[in-house]
């Protein structure tokens, strides 16, 4: 009889969803990846080279 949990792949899935702490690690990775992406995006925006201030709307004009 083929019982899925005899197969290593399903044993891995079982371990993945049932092991205490693994869920926290996955959530931690997800949040960590998001925060890193956001930080890198902000750095990317801030590091843009100043190639003429064509569209700079400030300081105020009359």
């Amino acid at each position, binding site marked *: 009889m083929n019982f899925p949990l005899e197969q290593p792949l399903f044993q891995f899935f079982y371990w993945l969803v049932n092991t*205490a702490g693994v869920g926290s690690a996955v959530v931690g990775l997800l949040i960590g990846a998001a925060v890193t992406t956001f930080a890198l995006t902000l750095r*990317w925006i801030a590091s*843009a080279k100043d190639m003429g201030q064509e569209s700079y709307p400030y300081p105020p004009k009359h």
Partner: protein
Amino acid sequence: MQQTLTLHDRDELITPLYKFDRKFWMVIAFLIAIITPGMLLYVRQLVLGLGVTDLNRPVFWGAYLVNFIFLIGISMAGTVISAVLQLLKVNWRRPITRIAESLTVFGLMTAGLQIIMDMGRPDRLINTLLYGRLQAPLMWDIASLTLYLLTAVFALYLQLIPDIALLRDTAPAAAPEWRKKLYSILSLGWTGAKEQWRRLEKAITVVSVFIIPIGISLHTVTSWLFSTTVQPGWKSTILGPYFVVGAIFSGIGLLFIAVSLAREYNKHLKEYITETFYINLGWIFIVMSAVWFYFTLNETLVVVTEQETLEFPVMASKLFGQFAPAFWGMNILMIAATWILVAPKFVSDKPTRNPLLQTVTGLVATGISVILFFLLWLQLPALSDPNIQTGLIIAFVLLFIVALFGVTKWMKTRLITSTVIASAFVLFGMWLERWNILMPTLTHARLIPYTTYTPTITEIAVTISTFGILTLMFVVFYKFFPSISIWEVEEGRALEQIADRR
């Protein structure tokens, strides 16, 4: 593209940020006054335990979780307005994107607080994070909520950068040094170079694309929390979309109220946030109300028709049991809100002698129907005769219809006021909807004797505190940052000028 910021705009949008006048302090004092009792009672709950609430087996989730779902729902406003309308390049969104996005952030923050308040031992919260398992729906909610909050903060911040640079460059000499330093740090050295604009707009577009599925995931994951249990009443496959629709509906409602309050607080905002916004978003509001009614009918009709042994008592408690006032109250509020939004579009501006369309008639009928509703709710022994009850119900329905017709003319000439009234009805109705999803099921749990739940003074005060905290965050935030996205409004004006020249 050449954009202009006139001194007029600067006076109206930036100068008030540095004025801590009496009105501001009165608002702060009022909010602190409504927050304090709830906080003190929460400290008491921390010391004495959850026994001071009406939470017990099997009602583990009470008013706090109703608030949680409601607050998560209203946070949908930012996603809908800012992201969807941004991607669709809708021009009238520009003046209200910031308020919408900030509502998302503050809504999620206060929603997170509810989870902590619902815990008897919040010090054990860390265990959820340390020993979390992927099979636990709570972990999905934590992941979704945190990711949504982070993305919402990031989206809000991205849109703020050019305006923070403006604040940095135009801060008055008398402004506190710490404030100038704060703007200098937060502006990330923004100079408005062409490449910076290009990258910023690209980032805003990408975030707008991602925040929509993340937002929808949060609202559906919350419904999964319910449906993965064995409790009757939470098994409907429509629960996920129902949560999303309710979230958009209540989110738009709160946005109308927040924008209207901001307009009243700073009268100059009326120049930027015009009636066009109320008309256009009002149509989306009407569509959402139609979808919401359809889903509510679906939820009710399916259970009533199947008469399943465990499911039906839950529905019966809503239709004519202990939760009937909340269920019918919700429906009455939603019918009234939809009528207020739709009916004025079908009547003329001209005065009429029709007694049914007179404001006085409407107000009198409203007053009497409210009294009748409470008489039915209180279930007084003197009115317990079925014939009297039927008579009261028929009288209520007729007077309610007269009330709706009576106020239509009045609403016709007051677009903003009527939208705010409809929004308030929707918000209260949606809070009751969350209540009606949670409480009937929890009090009619599987295999456990039926019970009741009535929020104690602690839960009521903490709920009031929560909404006070939400408003306080809103008020304080807009004392440091402009409530209108100045650069987006400028961009919109520039685009209109280009279109006019063509």
